[in-house]
């Protein structure tokens, strides 16, 4: 406990702040619907695009619904879906990457070639193709985002694991006759987990941005459900009046992604990833 406290003290204030924002939004995935003052669909006022007030801190939207409640309800979609997709991407990328790095040979060649093909399709393009073919239900969105960002996670995990795998302590384990499972679990994983977590955070940010963009185009979460991207889209008419209804969901996205970036930077994650982030995260 004392150790934890002293470690926390060493993290720059920006990192703590960023981490707190991210944790808050993750909590809202579970609690958002419960703590919201109104129901997401409830029309609370006949005036649309109301400015911020004590009663409606985020104003009202184009139908006169409470924006604060809609943003809190939206966390479930924006944060929840991105979290699930990032877990799929980083999890499968990590496992495949480590196994490819340790086993080498044809398995590595086939996996790398296949995933390189996926990486040659810009992420937005991939998303548009998938939505055109399968529609935009939530499972499709989760799987789609998970698939798009798996190759990048694979590349990073593989490259990190190859670096660790080149070290002599892995040779020692091999010479002892240890199996792939032991080497991956005991020798490689503990040495790459830091950068992999940082990469998970960045991947989460990319997915939030991608899905928000899709929703903004009307190709993501479909009404009556709404994530923050769709909230910006449906309230675009309020842009010219500078209504909080269009600004607040946008700010919510920015707070989440910038918060995550601050947290990663503070933990030294970006440095640990070093030059490994090359291609594959294209728009």
């Amino acid at each position: 406990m004392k150790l934890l406290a002293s470690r926390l003290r060493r993290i720059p204030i920006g990192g703590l702040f960023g981490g707190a924002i991210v944790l808050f939004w993750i909590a809202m995935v579970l609690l958002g619907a419960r703590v919201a003052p109104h129901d997401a669909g409830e029309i609370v006022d006949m005036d649309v695009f109301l400015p911020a007030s004590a009663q409606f801190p985020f104003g009202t939207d184009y139908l006169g619904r409470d924006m604060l409640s809609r943003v809190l309800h939206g966390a479930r979609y924006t944060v929840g879906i991105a979290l699930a997709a990032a877990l799929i991407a980083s999890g499968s990328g990590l496992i495949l990457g480590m196994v490819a790095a340790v086993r080498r040979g044809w398995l590595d060649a086939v996996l790398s070639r296949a995933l390189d093909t996926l990486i040659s399709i810009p992420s937005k393009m991939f998303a548009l193709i998938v939505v055109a073919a399968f529609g935009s239900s939530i499972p499709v969105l989760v799987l789609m985002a998970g698939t798009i960002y798996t190759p990048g996670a694979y590349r990073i995990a593989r490259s990190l694991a190859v670096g660790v795998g080149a070290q002599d302590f892995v040779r020692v384990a091999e010479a002892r006759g240890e199996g792939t499972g032991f080497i991956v679990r005991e020798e490689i994983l503990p040495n790459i987990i830091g950068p992999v977590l940082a990469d998970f955070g960045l991947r989460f940010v990319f997915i939030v941005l991608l899905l928000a963009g899709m929703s903004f185009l009307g190709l993501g979460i479909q009404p009556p459900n709404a994530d923050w991207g769709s909230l910006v889209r449906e309230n675009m008419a309020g842009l010219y009046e500078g209504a909080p209804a269009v600004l607040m969901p946008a700010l919510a996205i920015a707070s989440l992604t910038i918060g995550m970036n601050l947290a990663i930077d503070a933990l030294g994650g970006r440095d640990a990833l070093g030059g490994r982030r090359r291609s594959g995260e294209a728009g």
Partner: protein
Amino acid sequence: MLKLVASRLALGILSLLLVSAAVFAITSLLPGDAAEELLGQYATRETVEALRASLGLDQPAPLRYLHWLGGLLTGDFGRSLANNVPVAQLIGARLPNSLMLAGATAVVSVPLALAIGITAAMWRGSLYDRAVSVLTLSIVSVPEFLVATASVLVFAVHLRWLSALSAASDITSLAQFFRLFALPVATLCCVIVAQMIRLSRAAIIDQLRAPYVEMAVLKGVGPLRVVLRHALPNAIGPIANAIALSLSYLIGGVIIVETIFNYPGIAKLMVDGVSTRDLPLVQACAMIFCAGYLLLVTVADLCAILSNPRLRHP
């Protein structure tokens, strides 16, 4: 080295082939098909079958893929399902607009980003560098549509400098051209310049950590010369990669910008195609974007190969 260049080109072509297979596979995986989609759920079995045969959908998937690929290579992109016009005709009308937008953005953003990225790396740790870092990190952390809407708000609504809506069709004078173009280009630049600054700054700083840079400092070489004459020649490969990668953000940006500004480009065409699930149109647009992206990446890799002293002077 020629061998390396040739093999990189061959890899580019192979990637394009694999990508086309992937695009085709995804768009053909759905249990239903275009015929059912077109005719709706009340169509009889016979009419669906007839349409399916006329669209060639009764053939096995690999055959259809080859047929489609052959079409792509000969410029026959199929017919749009939504408005029954050849896809090539739709794209042909829109592609120049998008290329103009992308070209103008690249011309503005690449020199700007390199200048800022290199100077930030040179004075790393300074107030200037930290300001650049915070600003670019903020821009790449927010969605493109946010940057776009913010710039509409500032330039068109508050300052009333420029028109928010552009249409390339009714340009009559050069001044008008700039007015219409400025906002979309400025918005796109915001999105990709930030990315490009971050990547090129990182590429230079990576080189500045190398022992040969310390050696140059100990030889009495000044900071400007260290960056331009010592580090830069070694950073050409990484910077070319950074530019290619950032320009590929253009793809994401173009989609949003064309939609917001209602710009008649190919990205807008594709987004409309996705909404109406016009698969032939989506396939063709996707292949154009993917080919463009692969071209950029391949050119960047070739730059890296050609600038590598070990390969240049074997």
